[in-house]
């Protein structure tokens, strides 16, 4: 069965410190993985997708098929990074997304 696991419900970091949000998945095929972010009072929006291999707002994420992980990283956290982050997996041609439970990131000055 497909599953996306985000083990941390809350991640509290100081401004300027590195931040890493963990995401592990279980899927037997070739997954397409995403990170979505929801800032306070805003819509859920796409942050990263693994196939584009890009860096958005200083965040990067590398798909590790051996470890079935897609961890999100940023070397220096900023206060505006405080938000809810969701890891998601698209597993079929219908475009259904399976989300993790989410990680709330709080960056304190």
């Amino acid at each position: 069965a497909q599953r996306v696991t985000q083990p941390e419900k809350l991640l509290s970091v100081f401004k300027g410190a590195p931040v890493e949000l963990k995401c592990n998945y279980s899927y037997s095929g070739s997954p397409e993985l995403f990170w979505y972010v929801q800032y306070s009072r805003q819509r859920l929006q796409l942050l990263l997708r693994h196939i584009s291999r890009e860096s958005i707002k200083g965040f990067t994420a590398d798909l590790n098929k051996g470890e079935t992980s897609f961890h999100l990283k940023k070397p220096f956290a900023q206060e505006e990074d405080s938000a809810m982050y969701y890891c998601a997996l698209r597993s079929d041609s219908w475009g259904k997304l399976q989300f993790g439970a989410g990680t709330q990131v709080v960056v304190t000055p």
Partner: protein
Amino acid sequence: SQTIHQWPATLVQPVGSPLSLECTVEGTSNPNLYWYRQAAGRGLQLLFYSVGIGQISSEVPQNLSASRPQDRQFILSSKKLLLSDSGFYLCAWRGATQGYTFGSGTRLTVV
């Protein structure tokens, strides 16, 4: 440009009352549409998806139903709400290249 509208933003309904949440998409045709529910501490759960008019697939058995009467309209309904239907409901559509776009959501509280 493509936009997605979802209403109402908040809703408080008594147990046993009906429900109708509407989602419309503009600027695209024949989108794949999705209803998700975000329950406290449980992340986002896919409820329904639709790849065309009149076509609905249900992901989980529940007290809710969905309909797609028009190409860009997706409706989430219930005949009789339960307390457990409380949550945050999100509509989304998937474009060919833009990925997924989410609506602003409806906070439903069943009392």
